[in-house]
């Protein structure tokens, strides 16, 4: 039974904001008991929220147990996920999704034992749940094993951890129907459709050939362009290998971009040529400031944690990481060299801040090292990044050198340089406005086309390309 202390007891049905509608215990129980397709989802990340929405779309009733503050933060940070947000609000209003505070002890949640499916987003679980005992078994697993949750109820795990983590957890679970679903399909800016019709669906199963036990996921598998089911360890390994390969391609191109600079070749054009080779393909070949966001950096970190306890040589992945870290400040160095180090007290405009255009997230994005370096030289930074503005404002509340601008060209006339970090592919670059002030452009995203570069009257420096 969920204890009253662990639930929010003030039902708010405010249609004008995106706040989750919280239910008290009695209400939530009556809501969830209406259906026999009841899923319990535990987590607060965009993966968990998207899953809740998709599961309701597939005809399920969802109880989402989440850290309320984190959940609010996620919702606030992903306002750019328009479809996801609209459906979320709709389902809350319909009470198809009921949000409850995650209890301090897993046993309080599992005690109820009424759901038809439990889906746990492992990175979102409270520390007390993840605490391991002597045999390295997380507390929540022990409490699940001791709970009234029928052993035939399927449990799905998701998240990024050291290799073998989920396979081990599945073994600890004293139940046959345990699955692992890595979110390799989720795309920022289109979270909901990318899960509903995934490009690649991977799933690990503890018990071979047990797909029929989670019929609720069948529509997703059926919609997937590609899908593969295997044992959990293999799927974990494959997830890590896929992500590491993508990261490697990015760092490879970024390393080559430096050679391109030295040779006077446009790396963007080279990437286009490479993409023509079917053996290579065109994805993840764009040189820029590196990779950020949550997934790839988390994956590389998890891999490093796996490798550091082994004797397996991993110089390639170390290099991938080093190149990526260094790449994030490469554009600063180009700016530095342009002014021969005399950069103190300048003013610059920066277009874009998120880790990819269209996203409002700046996690592991180049904006942070760039701002830190610019501010350390007393440079005023005029940032145009509408989606990411609230996140930056929250991160740097007391930084007088951080100024937000509502239009990209607002401060160009006063700027000594223009940085491009994240400019949407679909939006036209205001070349004429740049040319009016003849400001040097430092394009960390390689957002400018070759023609656009040629049309600039001022100087241009990209990553592996220049005017």
């Amino acid at each position, binding site marked *: 039974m969920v204890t009253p202390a662990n639930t929010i007891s003030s039902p708010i049905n405010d249609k004008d904001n995106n706040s989750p509608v919280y239910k008290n215990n009695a209400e939530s129980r009556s809501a969830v008991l209406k259906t026999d397709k009841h899923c319990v989802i535990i987590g607060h990340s965009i993966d968990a929220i998207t899953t809740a929405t998709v599961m309701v779309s597939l005809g399920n009733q969802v109880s989402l147990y989440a850290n309320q503050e984190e959940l609010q933060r996620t919702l606030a940070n992903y306002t750019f996920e328009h479809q996801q947000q609209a459906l979320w609000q709709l389902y809350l209003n319909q009470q198809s999704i009921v949000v409850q505070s995650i209890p301090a002890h897993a046993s309080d949640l599992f005690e109820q034992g009424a759901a038809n499916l439990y889906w746990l987003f492992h990175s979102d679980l409270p520390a007390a749940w993840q605490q391991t005992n002597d045999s390295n078994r997380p507390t929540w697993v022990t409490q699940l094993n001791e709970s009234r949750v029928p052993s035939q109820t399927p449990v799905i795990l998701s998240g990024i951890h050291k290799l073998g983590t989920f396979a081990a957890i599945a073994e600890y679970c004293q139940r046959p129907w345990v699955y692992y679903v890595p979110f390799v399909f989720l795309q920022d800016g289109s979270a909901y459709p990318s899960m509903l019709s995934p490009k690649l669906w991977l799933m690990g199963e503890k018990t071979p050939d047990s797909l029929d036990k989670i019929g609720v996921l069948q529509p997703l598998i059926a919609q997937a362009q590609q899908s593969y089911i295997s044992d959990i360890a293999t799927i974990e390994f494959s997830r890590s290998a896929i992500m590491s390969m993508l990261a490697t391609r990015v760092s490879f191109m970024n390393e080559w971009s430096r050679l391109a600079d030295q040779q006077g070749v446009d790396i963007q054009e080279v990437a286009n040529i490479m993409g023509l080779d079917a053996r290579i393909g065109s994805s993840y070949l764009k040189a820029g400031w590196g990779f950020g966001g949550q997934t790839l950096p988390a994956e590389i970190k998890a891999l490093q944690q796996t490798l550091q306890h082994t004797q397996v040589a991993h110089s390639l992945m170390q290099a991938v990481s080093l190149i990526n870290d260094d790449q994030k400040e490469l554009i600063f*160095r180009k700016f*530095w*060299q342009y002014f*021969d*180090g005399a950069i103190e007290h300048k003013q610059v405009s920066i277009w874009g801040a998120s880790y990819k255009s269209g996203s409002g997230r700046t996690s592991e994005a180049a904006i942070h090292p760039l701002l830190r*370096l610019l501010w*350390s030289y007393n440079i005023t930074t005029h940032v145009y990044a509408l989606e990411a503005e609230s996140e930056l404002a929250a991160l740097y509340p007391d930084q007088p050198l951080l100024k937000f601008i509502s239009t990209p060209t607002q401060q160009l006339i006063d700027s000594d340089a223009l940085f491009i970090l994240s400019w949407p592919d679909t939006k036209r670059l205001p070349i004429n406005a740049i040319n009016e002030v003849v400001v040097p452009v430092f394009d960390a995203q390689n957002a400018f086309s070759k023609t656009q570069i040629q049309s600039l009257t001022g100087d241009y420096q990209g990553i592996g390309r220049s005017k």
Partner: protein
Amino acid sequence: MNPTLPSQLPQWQKLQQLAQHPWSLTQLFADQSDRSRKFSVTVEGIYFDYSKQCLDQNVKEALIELANACDLKQKIDRLYQGDKVNSSEDRAALHTALRLPKTAQLSHQGVDVVAEVHDSLEKAAVMVDRIRNGIWRGYSGKAITDVVNIGVGGSDLGPVMTNTALDEWADSTIKVHFVSNMDGTQLGSLLERLNPETTLFIISSKSFGTVDTLSNAQTARAWLFSTGASQATLLRRHFIGISANPERVSAWGIPEDHQLKLWDWVGGRFSMWSAIGLAVAIRIGNKRFNEMLQGAYAMDQHFAQADFEQNLPVLLGLIGVWNSSFLEINAHTVLPYDGRLKYFPSYLTQLEMESNGKSVTHEGQPVNYATCPILWGEIGSNAQHAFYQLLHQGTQKVSCDFIACVNYYQGSEAGELKHQHALSLANCLAQSRVLAFGNDALAPKPDQAVSDLDKFKRYRGNQPSTTILLDELTPRSFGALIALYEHKVFVMASIWDINPFDQWGVEMGKQVANEVFAHIHLQKSPSTQVEATDTDFDSSTEALLQHINKKIEE
């Protein structure tokens, strides 16, 4: 009328008489069961055991009487308040001001010394943060990865020693290197491994005229200029100058805002607390560096305030005087049983021998007593396999300082290392015991047969030693330890009436080197070209020069 030499004081003569006593450590311990309690002091986490010195309460009291007769207390006060205790150079020696807290007050010649010191330390701290945080950039915009400290003597030995001692507090990935050799050996091999884009040089020289330092600095500058980058940018982004002579630093090419100040009232060998410690602060951070200063300040306070009977630096200094001037022990060895203090003996060779290797009084009168003994040292456990043979069975009397840390490897995963540390401590105590008591240290077994080898196994014993135990080595305790030895030097100099703050003995060699340099037929850079003058060298030097020039010309 005051006697002109301290040896003419009745207190000195009393000690001379006491020194005639056939001092036996075995007997002293036999006579006094609580000797270790009576002859030990604990201050600032330092347990100081001098019970294995050849002295008793009478000697201790007589030494303190001598200290009083030599106005030691007044001399300490004069030192601290900035009087010109460096008489031959007419300067103060205010190294204690370098670790005064910001709230302290001290003015020297109308200047607020505390404010000056803290301005310099704060300027250094800003540089340290910028370097450590990757904000300080080289000419190409890359962050600094390597710092090379170019200096010699006090601009090298102190930072090198501290950097090694406090390495476990180093929390920066920036590597710090030290270059001092005039011949370029260190710098040459180092430059092969370094990237000019990411290397920063600290040029430390109080006068900014030391040929050793400037020759290395010039090589470093030429190495950077060979990159082809703008020389102004290279000088601005790759050099920090630390000196008491800003005009020379500016003339050399380092911009003013990358200069850190020294003062003529700080001797080089006492300067590691100032900006000279910049390389150390880069490794361990400003917080730890300040903790080191606080430890030194705590020892300063103790030195200034504690009664002589319980005053660590006073006792250490007086014991040094007793051994050298009265017991005629002309050699002293420092034996840290801790690898972190590897360079401490080298540091002390300069601190003690350059300070007190003097033979005239403040008034220039020759002394008629032994002053500073020859000092050397090594990590104790290594020295056991090197020169301990001489300590145990040689013909020389040698006094020793054993230094160890009680706690080490506090981490739970350090089981084997803790075992090694305990082994090291055991050896430290065992060696001081054997040195003190010789064969008596080991009780003979009743049925032990007498062997022909016994005459070679004879341990004479009676080598006096002090054992200094630090609770643990931290920046603070390390600062206190160094300050302890600085003040020991001052105590000894105060008794001997010599000036510990000048070093005229190293000057003449520099002058003669300039003359000789001009006669070596090597192609020299324009800036080092010296016109050879007609000089009458001795026949040995003439022959050596001829040999060198002949080989060069071949």
